């Protein structure tokens, strides 16, 4: 079976590192991480992911801008995005859904839950 390609965008390097290990250990995923969201388009082009996990509150380029960038990019607009953030307000939630994210997950989250939500998101598509 081909592995599901995931990109995680987050400004916390440690979070990226552990989450990548946890997902890849499950056996179904191939994970790339990026902490400076400005380079997301290049990574999407070279890695061609199946799904993107996206933090919202990041310095410089935040999650909303990343969403917009991806939606305007011919390669990026096909990739489903799941918001994965500690910032939980109704306003942000609605805004992200408006920008086209398929799911909205709140940190802290267990790996098992994360995996099932990713699979659900991909199944819906």
């Amino acid at each position, binding site marked *: 079976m081909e592995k599901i390609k995931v990109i995680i965008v987050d400004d*916390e390097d440690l979070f990226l590192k552990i989450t990548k*290990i*946890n997902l890849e250990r499950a056996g179904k995923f191939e994970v790339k991480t990026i902490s400076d969201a400005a380079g997301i388009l290049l990574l999407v082009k070279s890695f061609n992911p199946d799904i993107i996990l996206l933090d919202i509150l990041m310095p410089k380029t935040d999650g909303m801008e990343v969403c917009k960038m991806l939606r305007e990019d011919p390669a990026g607009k096909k990739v489903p995005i799941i918001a994965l953030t*500690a910032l939980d307000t109704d306003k942000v939630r609605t805004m992200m859904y408006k920008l086209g994210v398929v799911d909205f997950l709140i940190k802290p989250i*267990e790996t098992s839950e994360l995996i099932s939500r990713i699979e659900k998101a991909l199944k819906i598509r």
Partner: protein
Amino acid sequence: MSILTDYAFNFYAIPVGVAAISALILGMIVFSQDTRAPINFFFALSCLSVFIWLSGFSMIYLSKESATALAWCRYYSQFGIIAIAPNIYFFVKALTKSLKGKKGLLISIYSLAFIFYLSGFNPAFVIGTTRYFWGLYPLYGPLSYPFLAFFIALMLATFHNLWSSRGKMELSIENKRIKIVFSAILIGYAAALDFIPTFKIGLYPFGYINIFVWIACMGYAVARYKLMILTPALVADQVVSLIPDFLILVDREGKITMANRAIAAALGYKEGELIKKPVETVMPQKNAVKLLLSDLGENGIIANVETAYRSKDGKEIPVIFSRTAIRNDAGDVAGFVVTALDITERKETEDRLRDIQLQQEAILNNIPDIAWLKDNEGRFIMVNEPFGKFCGIRPQEIIGKTDFDIWPKESAQRNTIYDKEVMLSGRQKSLEESLTGKEGEKLVVETIRTPIYNDKREIVGTAGIARDITERAKEGKRLVEVLEAERKTREVITSMLEDNNQVREKLENSLEKLKEAQTNLVHAEKMEAVGRMASGIAHEVKNPLGIILQGINYLEGVSPSVGKEIYEVLQMMKDGVKRADGIVRALLDFSRSQEFETKPQDINSIIESSVGLVQYRIKGSGVEVVRELSNGLPKAYVDAGRIGQVFINLLNNAVDAMPKGGKLYVRSYLSKLKISGNGVGGREGDIFRLGEEAIVVEMEDTGAGIDEAIINKIFDPFFTTKDRTEGTGLGLSIARSIIDIHRGLISVKSKKGEGTKFTIIFKIPERR
């Protein structure tokens, strides 16, 4: 054959000949007005055909012999007669702008007409002549019938065309033109009665008289409305006089040669009064005049120069002017076209904006704290002097820069995140931050960030204030020390006065009061602080929690055979994370309790829906809900969601208090407040007056009751009697906070072993 032998003078030929020549002259005049316009062309053709017809008939009248007359008729006059109807038809088509794309029609009609002309050579068309009292006249035979039908058909088509387009043209001048042409052609076509004598009926052919009238009408139409297409050159006068901008023409010497209506009116002159005046009359600024009259070479355009015009009574009107040089054929400047725009209003707006900006600056600078405004990309729009002093850069130089240009990378990054959070959430954010000052001293700074909205309620930036609270933070510590000292003092005093009950009681009373006051004070501050910090903390805490939980997941998977003990530790850690997350979420709820939207609501229906929501717990718990709700309560101004949250919280607590079942009384009634104290009375800070009517809601259980020792603490944040895994200790403090912002009161009475009663009092909105 000579003129003398073939022709003889006939008086009747004269008016006909004059009419012919008049028609020809009119046609030539109109054609020369605009040789390219189809209207003029077809009109000239119409005139030409009328000329040929009438001049031919004039010759027929003069003819002595039938043969001469017949020749004139067949070869010459007929050529005009057959062409009249097509020419007028196409003239009208051009006039009503329906000529486009009719090339096929044009060719076929003229070909048909030409065939009729040729058929006139056949003796069955013009069969001969007869002599009437006015002279010889041609006679038509049966071959003329198709032509007459053609003639009448075209005539009707012409009228139809005119009739159907009356009043439908774009310009009123065109509509007027159509009206007058319609009557002219109607009269002209009456000349067709001249066909009658060709059938041997001796009616005098007065058609030329109609032609005279027609010429007069069309002449008037030409002179008054012009027949040609309206070109810019033609209507330039009207355009110039009507444009709302100021327009003058100035000759090379700086004299005004033309001024439009707008400028004359705005500057208070009569029309034409400005002509021949020097341009300085309207343009007082010497250098502007100099610029206006300068030769700038080929292009010669000056655009949008700000200056002022002067009105007749000396008032200055701010304008921006543009000018173009006009050159004669030799390429020399002959004069200038000067247009100008009145910018009085714009100027006023600009002045007002500048005033507002100055006021803003004054306000900002008047704040002793550091203050700034940023746009949505984090660039400083405005900062005050204390800001400049604090970072050692002059305020003007900070404008347009971002945090990254001013602060160390780490704090710039932090600030950017805070700003973004404020813009995303749309909420104010307050923080206490520790900083290191310029001289390396430790500082505690309180910052408040607020979103800035534009008139569309979109967030366009942030405003911020930072205050050095290093001193206050120190004082806070001192206050705690003082309280501690006081507690110790009290212990000592208590023990000293153990045997003096009276004194002790008094002292205890006053101490109690002192403590109450302190508790209230501390409580109020605590609540506010918790609210302010909650949303900030939530994000800061949830991120590391996310890392920890992922870490635990990682360890769980490292080696599944680590053994039961390590697995248990990991589960405990996970529980810990979840508990911390629960508290953070409750904190968020708490901070949200500060936001609410009130509407007139029926309290009873909020109670009913709240009871409905905890029904799943009541069922099978042995608890019986007894409703004693009064009918006809006035509506209260509340946020139904928030108040529902309070009721649910109290109902849940009541159910928790009765594990073995019991009765849960839910009451609502109208009451005049009788007992003073606890927010009721005339003291400062009291919410209700004594005797004021209010809505009272009670929730009373028959459960375990609350210990007297802790009853004062139950509204404090984080106070709970439940297991740490069950409650966060924030429920009642949130409830109190919600009731506080509704300007209501919540109180509790309890007796150990008998039950607990919570009472909430709501304001009744004043009747208008």
